[in-house]
């Protein structure tokens, strides 16, 4: 018996969909790259105030050490001259040490940037979350560097003042920018908040890059924009 073309097509379509479903179920049961059946928002524990604010570091530059000894008013002209030469030599030594340290720091950063090209296998502990109040306090204290993980156009429409924009999907493009960030400073990453996962992705990438003081502002721009806290627009 001949089937009508439409009926035959519908029957074939049903078979195609069934094949797709069977392949999907088989893959997600046995493949190593399977995903959880139910997608959940990435939840993080909130960091305590003690842990967050006790290791606050508001400096980013090494402070110069005063290596010049005090001048004794009873010194002779010869002693004063010797003292002046000693001071100059010590200052020269300090500057050279400082340059050497800076060169080493840049070299380390470059090596880490190169290693970051293959960051997929490095295990990472999840970053902790912070609340809107904690974020505001860190901003007021200038104790953290804020990084907005959203796209540049969203960043341009509004962001936390002083925040840097590194779109999580373009982390590899921003490795140069990341290498120049201070390691001793607290870093706060945020995105839209709610179900937005960009901040989590960026925090993972930063942790793989060697940044250990990364926290996620889970409320994100959605919560910040509802407050009367300062906001910036543009680049």
């Amino acid at each position, binding site marked *: 018996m001949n089937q009508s073309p439409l009926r035959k097509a519908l029957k074939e*379509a049903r078979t*195609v969909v069934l094949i797709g479903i069977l392949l999907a179920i088989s893959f997600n049961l046995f493949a190593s*790259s399977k*995903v959880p059946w139910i*997608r959940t928002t990435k939840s993080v524990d909130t960091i305590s105030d003690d842990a967050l604010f006790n290791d606050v570091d508001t400096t980013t530059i090494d402070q110069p050490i005063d290596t010049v000894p005090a001048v004794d008013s009873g010194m002779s002209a010869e002693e004063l001259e010797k003292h002046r030469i000693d001071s100059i030599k010590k200052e020269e030594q300090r500057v050279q040490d400082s340059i050497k340290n800076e060169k080493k720091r840049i070299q380390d950063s470059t090596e880490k940037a190169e290693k970051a090209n293959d960051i997929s296998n490095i295990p990472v502990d999840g970053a902790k979350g912070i609340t809107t109040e904690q974020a505001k306090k860190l901003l007021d204290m200038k104790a953290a560097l804020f990084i907005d993980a959203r796209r540049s156009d969203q960043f341009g429409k509004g962001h936390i003042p002083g925040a840097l924009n590194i779109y999580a999907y373009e982390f590899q493009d921003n490795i140069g920018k990341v290498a120049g960030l201070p390691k001793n400073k607290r870093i706060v990453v945020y995105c839209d908040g709610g*179900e937005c996962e960009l901040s989590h992705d960026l925090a993972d990438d930063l942790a793989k890059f060697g940044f250990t003081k990364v926290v996620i502002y889970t409320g994100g721009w959605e919560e910040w924009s509802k407050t009367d806290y300062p906001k910036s627009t543009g680049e």
Partner: protein
Amino acid sequence: MAETLTQQQPRTTSTLNEMHPAMQSLSLAVRILLGVIFLVSGAEKLGALDTFAHAIANYKIIPFALANIFAVLVVWTEIAIAVLLISGAAVRGTALVTGTLLTVFLIAILTAMARGLEIDCGCFNPAAGVEPEKVGWPKVFEDLALLAGAVFLIYFPKSPLTIDRLLRRQGEEGEKG
């Protein structure tokens, strides 16, 4: 009435069997083109399922919890479509599923644009360092072009180099023998 319908059926089938050779060649080209596009798209997404599920969740059309299931189903349906179109098996039915899938994509893109969402379209998984394609009019036209191809295959499914034709020929030879 029922008798009239029964009489009309063989004529429709006969018309399809007598497709002009040029149309058959065009059907072959459309089938292979759609098949390759869906194969590349499906294979790329399969390598980054979480990213694709992420893109689906961003559309905010289906519940967030179902984004992973939807992603796995879409990816494997795309791969099944690709294999069937390239091999030329069940072309009309496969084209029907392709058209349905493309219509769903089209509605998703248009609703995202209407809501002002400037999200990644999730069409292909971009290589590292390449910015993902965003929803917008270029994507709408791209989707419409593919949809036109699928509709063409629903009306003109017959083409050379198909598994269907090979099996039919073997069947006929078997009957003669």
